[in-house]
């Protein structure tokens, strides 16, 4: 039986801790600063190319989100359990009248809120800049991108949590998280392309392979929200539109939600089996 008051107490504590986490604050400020810079550049080009602020900025933000948001989520999640296990605070917490489910849910909810707050800060400041400069078009695209970025952040957090549940030490967990981030960000596209070439994959297999990477899920969903087509993604994009049509966005969002739920459940399973040591 989960006591949601305990979940709330623990979530508040995590939120407080995230505010004191220098790395997290650095990521959050870097994201806000870079998104402001991208928006500024987009606004500078408005006169020249005749494009409005929010849509153009959203296009620029997709790559920034792909780079920074998984890094924030993975590292924050990786330290979530392993760091406290190493310090001994996890053992002390579980000696109190709470259960493991409350502890995991509380920590996860607090960290997820911290990530959403960091993204809201970056997107919010950028929106103010765009609005102040009169670029008010395609607000819905911008909000959709914020929603997808939050989902990607929470999915990354969940994967980080799974790493944290399995790793013996905080440093190991962060190391694995950084390696995974590199793999997903830098080798995701190349890996899919290389595998497709070597194995001579069909276009549907290629698309299925892309869906295995949460970053690709975000990218496809974000590009589709922005342009209403996926021509820019090549044959796999065209295949996706023809096959799934209007069901594509629910499919991509559903898979991103699965990336939140499945690693979290696995983390809970391994955490329970392993205990707090």
């Amino acid at each position, binding site marked *: 039986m989960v*006591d949601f008051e*305990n979940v709330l*107490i623990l979530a508040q*504590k995590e939120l407080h*801790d995230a505010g*004191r986490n220098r790395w997290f604050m650095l990521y959050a400020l870097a994201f806000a600063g870079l998104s402001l810079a991208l928006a500024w550049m987009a606004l500078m080009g408005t006169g020249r190319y005749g494009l409005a602020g929010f849509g153009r900025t959203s296009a620029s933000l997709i790559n920034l989100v792909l780079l920074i948001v998984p890094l924030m989520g993975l590292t924050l999640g990786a330290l979530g359990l392993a760091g406290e296990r190493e*310090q*001994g*605070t996890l*053992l*002390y917490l*579980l*000696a*109190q*009248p*709470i*259960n493991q489910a409350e502890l995991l849910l509380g920590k996860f909810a607090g960290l997820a809120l911290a990530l959403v707050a960091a993204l809201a800060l970056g997107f919010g400041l950028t929106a103010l800049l765009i609005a102040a400069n009169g670029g008010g078009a395609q607000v819905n695209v911008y909000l959709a991108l914020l929603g997808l970025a939050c989902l990607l952040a929470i999915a990354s957090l969940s994967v980080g949590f799974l790493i944290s549940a399995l790793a013996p030490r905080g440093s190991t967990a962060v190391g694995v998280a950084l390696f995974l981030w590199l793999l997903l960000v830098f080798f995701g596209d190349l890996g899919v392309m290389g595998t497709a070439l070597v194995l001579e994959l069909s276009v549907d297999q290629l698309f299925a392979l892309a869906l295995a990477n949460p970053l690709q899920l975000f990218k496809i969903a974000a590009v589709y929200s922005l342009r209403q087509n996926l021509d820019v993604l090549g044959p796999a994009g065209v295949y996706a539109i023809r096959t799934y049509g209007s069901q594509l966005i629910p499919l991509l969002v559903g898979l991103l939600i699965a990336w939140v739920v499945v690693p979290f459940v696995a983390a809970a399973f391994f955490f329970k*089996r392993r*205990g*707090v*040591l």
Partner: protein
Amino acid sequence: MKDTMTDPIVQVSGLTKRFGALTAVDDVSFDVHPGEAVALWGANGAGKTTALRCLLHLMPFSGTVTIAGKDVKKQGKAARFLVGFVPQELSFHDDLTVAQTLVFYARLKKVADGYDFTPLLERLELLPHVQKRVRDLSGGLKQRLALAIALLADPPILVLDEPTSNLDIRAREDFLRFLHDLRESGKTLVFSSHRLEEVIALADRVLLLEAGKLVLAAPPHELEKELGRASTLHVILPAPTIEPALEILAAHGLPVSRNGQGVRIRVQPGAKAEALRLLHDAGILVEDFSLE
């Protein structure tokens, strides 16, 4: 004080904990009655800490542990409401102040809103330190903070893992005094220690663990007898009385020898006072003594 007429408040049956090939706790069973102070005693690595952690179900184990009838595996949260825990390694969130730490744990322990922390803080002499960050506290103050947290919500049982291991001698005496008062007030204590003097001072019953096995359960005054360990008593005497003392003690069969300013006597468990009584009866002034 202990009440052995009532049902045990802690029941441990067949407790076994393995880490891979290593059996840290091996088929240990014991009961603790309300108000009783029970010590787990043994060398480092004997399994004391692991056994205490299993009492709180902080790790998976085989066997059963019940606290006030609640199986810790099935009703762990309800069981932990009845227990205040003081760990060996004090692991708080260092960036919180003492006040913030107390409030955080008080909320988890469902301490009523408006609870007045002052009497507890005064009793543990923590009141002047409430605004300090935990990282700035000394080992002794952190230990008191752990005890303050353990006492929040007034649980009937305290589980303490080597509660004085990180303290200097003065802080240790203070802390033992707190624990003694708590025992007198009716709390049930289950604690681990590798210090015999601590166990003797505080426990009603001692459980001796060796390599994870429970090898002896006895009251502390019977412990030395059971263990059969002899000690050496060093007695400081006025110089003119050393020779008569040697003669008297040797005449009563005690293995005695001269030692600087006095005599050295090998004494058997439970018979340490005999040598001092013989000297007193012979009118020999004992200036000082120590036991080794």
